[in-house]
């Protein structure tokens, strides 16, 4: 019987060790955290390959700007989950924080308090902005304008209109609402942001019939996204002038995979967002028309750069005021195109970079490899 007690004690000790080992390893000599370096943190809205690319940029930034960067990807897109992580990180002496805000309006009061308590108020937003939170600057594209760019691509692909099926993870989130509103506003030729925010949709936008009269959501579940795409393809088989738009990174990839299994790849027009490996491959093969990219690698790098800027006590006026420009990914790439977009409420002409899918794909693979090496 005595031996059993010892066995139990050993098991508990092992459990305690599991907890202690990372505690030593993490902040000790090895890994990303060398003692003495200034620590900053980046908290994303959810775990996703998109954020792995961003993390690679942040790791590069950490090396270039001599910072210890903690990069956290919450397991689910839930405000409480994200804010719990932020709460914990603010207790361990970080000198700067960047957050991809899930629900800007509702998180603003709490983020304001957090920004006030951070040294030098060094708080940035990235990817999804909360302008009233006291953030020093925002690193990210304007999702509404990026959505409009998708809309332009839809119109260019089918100038005479057609049937549009719109896929997205969720219309709960701010970037989801803005992207959907961007696409539909461009097609309708009028601003439908407030209707979309209220969950009100019409059957027709310009020359395009919106299938099911609403975006088809999957709640971030990639299997469901694949099923949604497959079912919709089945339903709309034979409809002329069909265009499928996927607005979260995995959506265009899942649409393409479903189209491939049904032998509809190349027949149905697919337009996407972001740079999923499958999406880039599809663009290169001509199965996807193109994609609007936010350049997440750059997000990561720029965020770290501007966090360092404030830590060094440099002029806050030098921080970026405008949203980061988005870029286009197409089969052949090409020269930058000019677009008139609204920047902070002012109409401005900007240059939109065009990337060649095969070349961009290599960059993304390098980023994944870098992120993996950093882990």
């Amino acid at each position, binding site marked *: 019987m005595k031996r059993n007690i010892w066995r139990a004690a050993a098991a508990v000790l092992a459990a*305690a060790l*599991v*907890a202690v080992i*990372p*505690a030593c390893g993490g902040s000790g000599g090895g890994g990303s955290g060398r003692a003495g370096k200034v620590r900053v943190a980046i908290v994303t809205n959810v775990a996703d390959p998109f954020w792995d690319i961003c993390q690679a940029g942040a790791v590069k930034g950490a090396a270039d700007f001599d910072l210890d960067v903690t990069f956290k990807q919450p397991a689910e897109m*839930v405000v*409480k989950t994200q804010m719990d992580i932020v709460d914990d990180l603010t207790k361990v002496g970080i000198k700067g924080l960047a957050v991809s805000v*899930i629900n800007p309006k509702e998180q603003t009061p709490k983020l304001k308090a957090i920004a006030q308590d951070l040294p030098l108020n060094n708080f940035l937003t990235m990817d999804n902005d909360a302008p009233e939170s006291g953030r020093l600057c925002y690193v990210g594209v304007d999702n509404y304008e990026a959505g409009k760019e998708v809309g332009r691509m839809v119109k260019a692909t089918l100038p005479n209109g057609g049937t549009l099926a719109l896929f997205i993870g969720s219309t709960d989130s701010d970037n989801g609402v803005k992207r959907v509103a961007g696409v539909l506003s461009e097609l309708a030729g009028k601003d439908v942001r407030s209707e979309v925010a209220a969950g009100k949709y019409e059957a027709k936008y310009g020359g395009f019939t919106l299938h099911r009269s609403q975006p088809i959501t999957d709640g971030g579940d990639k299997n469901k996204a694949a099923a949604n795409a497959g079912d919709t393809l089945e339903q709309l088989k034979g409809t002329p002038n069909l265009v499928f738009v996927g607005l979260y990174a995995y959506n265009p990839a899942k649409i393409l995979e479903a189209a491939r299994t049904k032998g509809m790849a190349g027949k149905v027009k697919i337009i996407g967002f972001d740079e999923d490996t499958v999406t880039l491959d599809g663009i290169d093969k001509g199965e996807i028309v193109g994609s609007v990219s936010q350049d997440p690698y750059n997000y990561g790098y720029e965020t770290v750069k501007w966090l360092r800027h404030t830590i060094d006590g440099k002029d806050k006026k030098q921080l970026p005021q405008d949203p980061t420009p988005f870029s286009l990914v197409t089969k052949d790439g090409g020269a930058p195109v000019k677009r008139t977009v609204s920047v902070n409420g002012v109409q401005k002409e900007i240059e939109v970079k065009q990337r060649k899918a095969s070349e961009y794909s290599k960059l993304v693979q390098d980023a994944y490899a870098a992120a993996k090496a950093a*882990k």
Partner: protein
Amino acid sequence: MNEKVKFGAALGGGFAVAAGVWFATHTYHDPKDHLPAPWSEATLTAWFIAAAVAVGVLAYSFELTRRNLQRLAGVTLLLGGLLAALGYSGHQKVQENEPLIDTLTSRIERLQREGNTAEATDLREQVVKLQQNPAFGRTNVFEKLNRHGEYGILCIGAGLLILAGGIDLSVGSLVGLAAVLFGVLVEKGVHPFLALPAVLAVGGTVGLIHGLMVTQVRVQAFLVTLCGMFVYRGLARTISPGSPGMVRAQEVWPDFSAPLMQLRQWLTGIGADERLGFPGVFVLMLVLAAVAAVFLHRSAFGRYWYAIGYNEQAARYAGVTVWRHKVAVFAVCSLLAALAGVIRFLGAGSVTPSSEGQSFELYAITAAVLGGVSLKGGEGTAVGMVLGALVLPVVNTLMNFAKIPSEWEPWLIGLILLFGTVADELIRRSRGGR
């Protein structure tokens, strides 16, 4: 021992523990942590007394038998290890700061020689802050206790149900539904003080339906609640196209601003300035645990629930109206899930219909099992549920404190919980449990 003496001793112990925590967190805290303005002495005192009495009642109701103690041994050891690891990771933070502390100290000495006392005092405050272990700062402790409270409320419900031979897989979805429903009701113009009981009533009714389906229609609890899991998640998404939120609600109904803030302050302890002044959820959970403890260990109900969980047929032959008790426990479990949902909405300010509270049923069940509740039914204590619910919040905090990459977290958490349950089982077996 005389019961009155025992009760008095337990109550005294409760006050001593509460006072200890209170003073420890108040003498040892970040100078920047300040008590938010709206906190009146009376509210704080009321809360403090509630917490102390709850601890006392919990201690008094706990039967000091060898088997009960064995049930707690595993989780206590696990928690000890985890808290030590947390304290250690905080301590490392202090070590990292040592070069900076040295520089600052020499600067303070220089300033004092020069007679610049004002700046020296400023710097000294900074040094004190750097020397403190952030794991034991007041705000940190209070935040973690609040998270413990949230898990605890769910764990008490799930624990009571499992103990009485049931299971509820819909807890997570119901938390989501309750959180969304509360938000939607308030946005639609229902006064927050009315919306709270309404949501709780919905939760209770859901539990009643579960109980009746299980006892009257004789469907397996596993199946009924599994279907419920899908239904409530779908309902949550149906009743709200986007994410309901407090700011949005206050914009539509400016009159609700004050009652919403009041409710948030009472239930969560977050003040109007968004800062946590008191671990409200934790105290609420302690009070609920104390009530559960009295029911479980000091009333006939508890005897019946243990009997039903241990052997339902035997309980029926012994004359227990099994179905009524089972329905009641199902209702309690769902009611507590609804309460946790409302607290979540108030605490976070906004909730995501599609994933709020996802897999909480599993967290609640794991916490209950870690706390010594047998999945076979008929075993478990209220104190155990409270302790079991503390494991996951501590583990989560450790993940952030110790610079662990996000993608390690799931498997680390899984392994730690597995170790906990294995240790628990071995300890129980070594003493010839059941």
